């Protein structure tokens, strides 16, 4: 029985409550700090600014005073694809430098194997992948805060959100090393952004595990995913009570109802 249970793969994912997100940027900085993301003098060109977690400000484009806005945090969506593992990026990487981990559902990036062809970036509609156009340089003394859990990336390769995979590894090591602990508990493995979010807008956990909060939240009637109809089958769910916010999650033809375009993907 226990063996059977062990066979069930985990599928880590996130549910973000957009009605709570304040756009404060904590998730972005928590991520940068956790993952040794470099910074450079000018980060105002957002097309070459590495932000694994990026918060977009989205407006309904209506003129004053009917303008409305929401913020949406966008980590790597950890796409499962139409059949588990067929993520847009993983399927195209020529050197197996980005991979789909079937045991967790996490899309990884192997920095030492990536040779910087950037095909994965072309494949990703979420712009979740970032290229190291420059060598990472920390001002004198600041390299002291670099974490040994995540190796700083060299110039010329692609990087992206890993769902803080090193935290999963640390947590699993504890499970392996412990006699009385058999499996991870929900709180044992949380991403840096989830922890830092002052609004508690982010919930992270195993989508397959009924005891985890995300399992239930993902089925909320107001839950949606980004660009669902492309069949990317992402693991980041968003919730909003506002219809126009949900509609902004996907492209619609005139006359289509919001949420009517969910792509049927092979269950897992």
């Amino acid at each position, binding site marked *: 029985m226990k063996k059977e249970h062990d066979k069930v793969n985990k599928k880590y994912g996130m549910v973000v409550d957009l009605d709570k997100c304040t756009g404060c940027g904590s998730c972005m900085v928590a991520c940068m700090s956790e993952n040794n993301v470099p910074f450079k003098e000018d980060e105002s*060109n957002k*097309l*070459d600014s590495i932000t694994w977690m990026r918060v*977009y400000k*989205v407006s309904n484009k209506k003129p004053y005073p009917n303008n409305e806005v929401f913020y*949406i945090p966008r980590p790597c969506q950890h*796409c499962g694809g*139409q059949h588990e593992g067929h993520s*847009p990026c993983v*399927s*195209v*990487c*020529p*050197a*197996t*430098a980005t991979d789909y981990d079937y045991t967790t559902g996490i899309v990884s990036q192997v920095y030492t*194997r*990536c*040779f*910087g*062809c*950037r*095909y994965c*970036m*072309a*494949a*990703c*509609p*979420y*712009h979740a*992948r*970032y*290229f*190291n*156009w*420059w*060598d990472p340089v920390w001002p004198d003394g600041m390299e002291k805060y670099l974490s040994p859990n995540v190796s700083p990336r*060299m*110039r*010329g*390769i*692609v990087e992206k959100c890993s769902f803080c995979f090193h935290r999963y590894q640390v947590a699993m090591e504890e499970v392996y090393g412990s006699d009385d602990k058999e499996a991870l508990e929900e709180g044992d493995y949380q991403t840096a952004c989830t922890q830092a979010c002052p609004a508690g807008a982010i919930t992270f956990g195993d989508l397959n595990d009924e005891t985890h909060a995300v399992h239930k939240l993902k089925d909320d009637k107001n839950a949606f995913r*980004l*660009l669902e*109809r*492309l*069949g*990317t089958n992402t693991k980041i769910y968003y919730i909003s009570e506002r219809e126009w916010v949900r*509609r*902004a*999650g*996907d*492209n*619609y*033809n005139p006359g*289509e109802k919001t949420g009517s*375009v969910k792509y049927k993907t092979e269950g897992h």
Partner: protein
Amino acid sequence: MDSALIPKGVERCSLKRFLLGQAIVGAVVLWGVYAMILCWMKGLNQTNMNDSFGFALWIWADLAVIAVGGGAFFTGLLRYVIGLKDLKNIINYAVLIGVCCYGSALLILAIDIGQPLRGWFIFWHANVHSMLTEVAFCLSLYMAVLIIEYIPLLLENRQVDKIPFFHNLSHNMHVVMAVFAATGAFLSCFHQGSLGGVSGVLFGRPFAFREGIFIWPWTFFLFTWSAAACGPCFTILVTKITEKITNKKLVKDNVIDLLAKISGWMICSYIIAKTIDTLYWAFVTAPHAGFNVMDFYDDNFWAHGIWILIMEIVICGYIPAIILLREKTRQNQKLLWTAAILATIGICLNRWVLVMQPMSMPVMTFDEWVLYLPSWQEIATTILPIAGGIMVIAFSYRYLPIFPQEQELNPVED
């Protein structure tokens, strides 16, 4: 001075003039080499690429040179496998152009990747499901085939040919050339196709994505077909340009006409297929992803206006097809030039659109269009292999018997 190296029975310009010409082109090459070194030493921050435009000028140049270099495999296929004997008079040149094109592509790729020292990981850690892996393997294997096809030519140099071993080697290679050519055609079909697949499989990018058969999107077949169709046009174009520069007739009209006719049929069938593909994409694929096809063209008119589609399909597709199909029009030199130029532009434009437009187009509703202009380093490194190609062609023309009909068409009075 170098008359001992020049093939017998043909006339060449003075060495001084040749070297002067080479020096001018060589200066451009040096400029390109400087840019290339900058990219290697300082990294890709030397380019104007960015996280939205991860694929840009270079990838387009790769796709384009390989497309126009398609003349080599297709002419080879026609000559050696199908057995159109007449084409032996142009196959050498087609192979030479192919070598230049494929060499260019490989060089640009070596600059384009962020970690050139690890480029071989594409072979070592190959992900067989990636179109780019398929491209890399087929491309390098086909490059080997092209070199094999070029070697006998090299060995036919007057002085080299004097060495018995090389003479024999050249002879033997000619004997088995059909096998190499067939292998080359097989490889070429695949890498032309997989280059098409590169953008066609991007299911996250509605502009690029196409449905298809099994693992191959329609662009896979369209790319192979279009390379076979337009490649010969490029071969004709370069031959014509060479004739203009050397001020000599080098290939007989019937040879050119045969190639042009075949190209005409190919372009015609291709452009019909492309039209069907475009219509299906516009009315089925795009709406399925939630887009109106005009969403793809509604930003900056000059950068991504609908004109680009009309230009590609009508002006650079149907028009050359019509010109080349009709005997009367294709035998009119001016129209033949026009058709060859249009077809070459058309295929380059097709590659351009499939590389650039998917990158600049927003997919998330709250994303924005991105405009990209290449940096001088990108332009220089793109011109570099072209200039290098010119040098190789000039060198080969001077010292190797590229055009079997040259002697006959231009008798030298002793």
